[in-house]
């Protein structure tokens, strides 16, 4: 059942560029980026029990840094990409030192505060960020001579990185380290009594989540060729968090499905209904009422019940 579902999805994802038009190809590329972003947030929220409202920081800073170095310093893509990722990951290390002074609500507020500082900076530091105009004129790189300006080429590029990212994150949560991370979520005190350094486990996860957030930010700025302070806003963080929770936090597939739902509502429904945020709210409330732990665990439970009923 599970293997069949993954197989079908693989065929569908590989086939889309050959049957669908550019609109859908571009749209699906955006879902891949959102999926990496949501999956990285899920490491903290779902597996670490650390609800963050500041994950946009890593997406936004990686995007801004690479665009700024490319546009203002005239650096090449092959240099800006690793520098942006490394700098953003280091920033995650620093933010982790601050945010992990607390857990629960305190952690949520600290992550929110830190990302709001960045958002405000992006708006006000006009000489660097161009403020509300955003940074325009970014281009897509051409790794190994493949021109990513072509929608299909970008699609497969984003797909490859998404598959790699999600596979590595799946290995991370399935490893002994991942088991200890879930342990700190469920019984932090017991974990330290057993010899586990709870703080360090959380900090490493925080940095790792920041790293994948930076990767999604890089793809984001390559896709849009533009970056605006809105990408650092609370809305960006909250949309991802809603996707994670609606899909099922602490599951592998949940955030991917949740992110896809948010993207569909945002891009598709918003052309018919202006207040798409309202609809997103209704959909979220609907899911949480009927499936409190998210779509993936909810559907799994329904499936188990359905299978139990017919021998």
């Amino acid at each position, binding site marked *: 059942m599970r293997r069949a579902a993954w197989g079908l999805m693989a065929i569908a994802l590989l086939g889309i560029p050959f049957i669908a038009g550019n609109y859908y190809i571009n749209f699906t590329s955006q879902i891949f980026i959102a999926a990496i972003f949501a999956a990285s947030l899920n490491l903290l929220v779902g597996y670490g029990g650390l609800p963050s409202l500041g994950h946009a920081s890593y997406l936004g800073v990686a995007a801004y840094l690479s665009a700024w170095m490319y546009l203002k310093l005239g650096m090449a893509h092959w240099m800006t990409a690793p520098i942006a990722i490394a700098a953003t990951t280091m920033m995650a290390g620093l933010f982790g030192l601050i945010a992990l002074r607390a857990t629960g609500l305190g952690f949520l507020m600290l992550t929110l505060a830190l990302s709001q500082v960045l958002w405000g900076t992006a708006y006000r530091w006009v000489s660097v960020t161009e403020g509300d105009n955003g940074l325009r004129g970014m281009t897509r790189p051409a790794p190994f001579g493949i021109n990513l300006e072509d929608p299909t080429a970008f699609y497969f590029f984003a797909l490859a990185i998404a598959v790699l990212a999600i596979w590595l994150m799946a290995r991370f949560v399935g490893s002994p380290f991942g088991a200890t991370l879930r342990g700190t979520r469920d019984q932090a005190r017991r974990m330290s*009594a057993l010899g586990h350094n709870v703080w360090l486990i959380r900090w490493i996860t925080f940095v790792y989540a920041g790293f994948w957030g930076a990767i999604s930010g890089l793809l984001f700025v390559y896709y849009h060729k533009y970056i605006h302070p809105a990408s650092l806003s609370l809305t960006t963080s909250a949309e991802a968090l809603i996707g994670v929770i609606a899909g099922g936090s602490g599951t592998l597939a949940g955030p991917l499905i949740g992110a896809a739902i948010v993207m569909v509502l945002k891009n598709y429904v918003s052309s018919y209904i202006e207040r798409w945020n309202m609809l997103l709210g209704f959909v979220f409330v609907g899911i949480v009422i009927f499936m409190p732990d998210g779509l993936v665990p909810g559907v799994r439970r329904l499936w188990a019940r359905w299978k139990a009923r017919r021998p």
Partner: protein
Amino acid sequence: MTATTAALSIVALKKSFGGLPATNDVSIEVLPGERRLIIGPNGAGKTTLFNLITGDLKADGGEIRLFGQDVSRLPPHRRAHCGLARTYQIITLFPSDSLEHNIALSLLGLSPLRWSAFRPLGRHAHLYDEARGVLKRVGLDRLAGRSISEVSYGEKRRVEIAMALAQKPRLLLLDEPLAGLSREERMSVTELIAAIPRETTVIMIEHDMDAALGFAEQITVLHYGSVIVEGTRAEVVADPKTREVYLGDS
């Protein structure tokens, strides 16, 4: 000065909550291999003392040494690496995980494998083999794959002890291991505790005097955060102060 280093040496330990002393100038020395019982009425500060030893609580003053090493300023996980393990009065397990996974988390606590973040946990077969071995020691190997939420209260108590034993601790703190158990379950857990090898020093808090007195070689009586009587079983039981505060004056 004794020739051997004490397993646990506490000197002038203090802790108060909002001005109320919970641990009031406590000094205790426990020798390696010893079986020590700590008794005292409710609110005497027994569990607080355990929490200070493990580092869950920070002491206001005094010194704690484990096998000669001053651990007063070490966080709880570092003390675990010094050979300290504990059980909780209120069962503290990972309820949605299997029994063997609970034990595996305990084994990982002292293993460098805990930092491995790529190879799936399930492929580390030796970890689960060892976990099942520990469960066999406490008679729960047939339930190894069951989730904690599916087993009885008495079985959970035994998992608590198994989690501590898995680490082969040098000093084991048992906080009311018999609390809430039926008569038969008490007997089996008492046997389990009696079978702990002498390499492990054991300090136990317990209210069930029948079972506890059989176990204890040395007894410490706490009252309002202070040690009021200490000595061998016979000495402590005979002491009028013990009768006054604990056994009930008649």
